[in-house]
Every structure is written in C-alpha cells, then in structure tokens.
C-alpha cells in the first residue's frame, strides 16, 4: 500500500455512460490483486474533500479504473486529461480469493451488475491465468449499459448477457439469468460465485448460492473516508461482529454477512 502521485496515461469515455482511466502506477500494478481498490483524490485545490474509492479494473500498462459519473468527484475525474497527475492510494482491501481445487475441479461464475463489472474483469484475467473455467454473467438496465463483454471474452470466459428491458441478451434481471445458467450447466464442478453490483442484486445472488451451497464472494460498496481502516466509517455487520469494508473487505463471503 502506497500513496502515489501518478500520471494519467489516458482517460476516455467508454460506451454510453462510463469512463476508463489508465494510471501510471507501477507499484500498485505490481502489488494489486483482483478485488482490491484504490482511493483517488479527485480534485486538487478545490473539489471534494475526501478521496473516492475505485476498484482496480485491469492491470496492464498501469492500473485501469472503470467508472461512472454520479457526482462531483467522478465529474471532476472525467474532466482530467492525459498527462495530468492524481494522487492514488493503493492497493487497498483484501481482494477475491481464487478457488483452489479440492476434490472437484473448481469453476467460477462471475456475475456483474452495471458498474459492478469493474473489479470482475481483473478477476477473470487472473482466473484465466490459473486456468479455471469461468462463466461471466453481465447484467444492466439496457443494451448500451452492458459493460466489458469483450474483456470477459478475452479473458476466456463464457459470457451471457441480460438486460432489464430485454434490449440485449436475456430479458430480466441477471439473477434470472443465473438461475437459467445453473439449470443448463453441468454440476460436476466446485462452483465459486463472484458478484459485484447493486445491493438488491447481491442479496438475491447470495440467496441462490446459499440454496445451492455455492461459495459466494461479494464485493461491497460502502461510503468510505480513509480507505485504510482508520476512521471506522465503513462498517459491515458480520456474524463475527463489525468488520470494515475497506480493510477486511471489500470482498466478503456471503455466509459471513448478517445483512
């Protein structure tokens, strides 16, 4: 974990409503694991006070983040240009744990809702390296909000899409798609589910996993101030008491959570 003043290598609009920023932070790129995040100072002398957390989306030329403009911080971020410098603190948090074969061969099912795709692409790449069979389900409101289809494919995942309005892929929520996939796909694997997305979706997927006895790792988004476990602002209730999303998470095992 380091706080780095890093150069922006590129910052471009991607798709309909998202931006992708590549940041020259070799230390963070080397140290990062899928599921970890960085804290970025969006403004310099002005702008919001606190840093903003973003998942590490890819690790290539530098680290990449994929983000949605939802407020003042992300709006300022979207205005940054190649060559500008920003303060990036990371890598932070625990990250996903990759399944290890125990008896049955492991299989990963990745489920991304909306911007929740961000941390999961990096995970898919890692799973590919580990040669773990991966299925990726991508859900969004509508066709042009579907994120990272190509990236998941490039990472060797079998990709399925669902949109709430049926404009692309399966019609309905991604949880419906998940049900469907489970019906058709073989179960000779030890399945681990990785999910990131809106709160309601996380709960829904976690419930399905519980029924099926799948391990389910979910990445939670809580409001954060420090990102390093100092402020106690990002508490998550678990069966073993208060945990911190920034330090003990952001990835939690669904079975730990008391919701």
């Amino acid at each position, binding site marked *: 974990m380091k706080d780095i003043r890093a150069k922006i290598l590129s910052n471009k609009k991607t798709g309909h409503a998202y931006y992708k920023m590549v940041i020259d932070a070799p230390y963070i790129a080397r140290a990062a694991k899928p599921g970890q995040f960085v804290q970025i100072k969006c403004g310099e002398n002005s702008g919001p006070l*606190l840093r903003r957390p973003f998942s590490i989306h890819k690790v290539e030329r530098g680290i990449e983040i994929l983000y949605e403009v939802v407020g003042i911080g992300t709006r300022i971020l979207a205005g940054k240009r190649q060559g500008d410098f920003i303060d990036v603190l990371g890598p932070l948090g625990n990250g996903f744990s990759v399944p290890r074969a125990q008896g049955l061969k492991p299989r990963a099912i990745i489920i991304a809702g909306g911007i929740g795709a961000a941390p999961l692409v990096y995970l898919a790449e890692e799973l590919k390296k580990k040669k773990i069979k991966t299925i990726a389900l991508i859900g969004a409101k509508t066709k042009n909000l579907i994120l990272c289809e190509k990236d998941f494919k490039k990472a060797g995942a079998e990709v399925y899409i669902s949109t709430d309005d049926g404009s692309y892929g399966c019609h309905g929520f991604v949880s419906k798609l998940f049900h469907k996939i489970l019906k058709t796909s073989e179960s000779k694997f030890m399945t681990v589910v990785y999910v990131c997305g809106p709160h309601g979706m996380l709960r829904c997927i976690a419930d399905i996993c519980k029924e099926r006895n799948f391990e389910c790792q979910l990445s939670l988004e809580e409001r954060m101030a420090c990102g390093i*476990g100092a402020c106690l602002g990002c508490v998550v209730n678990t069966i073993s008491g208060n945990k911190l999303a920034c330090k003990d998470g952001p990835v939690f095992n669904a079975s730990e959570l008391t919701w």
Partner: protein
Amino acid sequence: MAILDIKIGKIKLKNPVMAASGTFGYAREFEKLTDLSLIGAIITKTITLNPRQGNPMPRICETSAGMLNAIGLQNEGFDNFIKEKMPYLSRLGVPVIISISGNNIDEFFILAKRLDKIKSIAGIELNISCPNIKCEGLVAQDAKETYEVVKAVRKITGKTVITKLSPNVTDVVKIAGAAEDAGSDAVSLVNTFLGMAIDIDTRKPKLGNITGGLSGPCIKPIAVRMVYEVARNIDIPVIGIGGIMASDDAIEFMLAGATAVQIGTANFVDPGICVKTVRGIENYLRKHKIEKIEDIIGGMEQK
C-alpha cells in the same frame, strides 16, 4: 535548523504536530504510508471501559469542505486495547496519548487509574466532547461537570492530562477555565460540531445516527477563534484542532495561541499529512528567520 520542540505537561514533543483521536486509528494503519517516528505525538482512537459497537451505518457523509461522522466511539474496550494495540504503540518511540471516554465519572476514573500504570503511555486525553453518543448534553458543555471529570482523573494520575473541549458551547473559555482549575495540563480544541444532513430524495438523514460531528476545513475559522479566545484567558497550553489541511493552517492556529496542533480529517485525505505539516512549519520558520517554534505561539499582531 529551527527548534521545533514544545512541551505539553510532562510530555516533550519533538514538534507540535499530533495526529487527532479517531482519525489515526491506533497508528498501525498508517505505518506503511508515513514515517510515524516523525510525528510529534499520536492520540489514539477514544477507548471506553467496555467495548462499544458504535452507531448504525451510514456513519459518514461529505459536506461542503467538510464531513460529518457518527462513528459512535466504536472500540474494543480497555482490555482488548491493552492486549492488541498497546504492544505496537509502545514500540513506536513517539509519545502516545490515549484518548478515553466514559459514561460517568467512575468510568473516566477507572480508565485513568489503569492507564496510569502503563509506563509507555505519555498522557491521557479526556474526550468529554464526542457528540456521537446518545445522552443529555456533553460533559464539555457544562463547566461543573468538566471540572469534576478532570478533577477525578487528576487525582489518580500523575501523567499528563489533556482535556478535549467541545465547540458546541456558548462560552468555551469558561469550560477551558474549569479544566484548568481542575488541574488539566492542557486543553485541546475543538472536537467536532454537531451537525446533520438530509437526502432530499429519500427524505432520510444521511447518517444512521441522524446527527453527527462536523470536521474539516469548513470549521477552521470557528476553531481558530475559539483557540484565540481560550489561549488569552488560561495559562495552560492550548492544542489547536479543526480543519488543518496543511502547515499554513497549523501555523495559523499557533499564531492564534496554540502551543501545538492536532490533525484530524486531513489524515484521511493524505496519510502523510502530519509529517508534511512538520516540514511545512520548518520551512515557514526558515523563511521568516524564526529560530524557535515557541516564538510564533500567540504571535498574531493586533493591528
């Protein structure tokens, strides 16, 4: 090289910059991000006798040039603190000041008594001003109660005692005076201002606890004024807190009369800010050819 050391009670600090309670965890959280040994002193997150779960989420929200927090003094309680945090803190080689709070005088007394026995603790900060616990008013909103809490602690410990004051009062000088009279070695101010924010679309409060404490640069002008008033009216050292984001702000507090400062919220924005502030103060002294940091304390010129 300018001389930066100052003294608060019996504690010798190599510089006047401290990390404020609740914003620096138990120091270890920052070990990879800054050189802890360069900080003047570290005040740990407030502990209570018994563990506290803290408030429901959300616990933080950002405001214009500030933030609201309603952590609610979540902590593991005294015993766990001693077992799990103290060993690391003892090895730091930096004065460590333990912030404590209690539901009543007894709890303050017991905590102080137990801490008094721990050699590696430099001092105790009495958090009588946390707005995030549900009860009728704060100790630090009442001169008599302040006097009594400080007095009880003073009786039981020879360690340096710092009383942390609340800005949510009509007359902070009166409360500071009560702390002084009761034998506090110093006062630190300010703790957070009680505030709140509402999400107009959901109509819900932005904090689970409804109200929370406001900190950050937004409060600095009020905090500087309070430090100025208090420093002119009491004889023990004043530690300035509130919205320090850079060394200029720290110097401003010292010119207003603070002997030392504490940095809170800024640690979240820049984990290296305490050390940077020390360096910035050094540069300021050099630039203005001032030999000792002491020479700027209360150095504002009335025109």
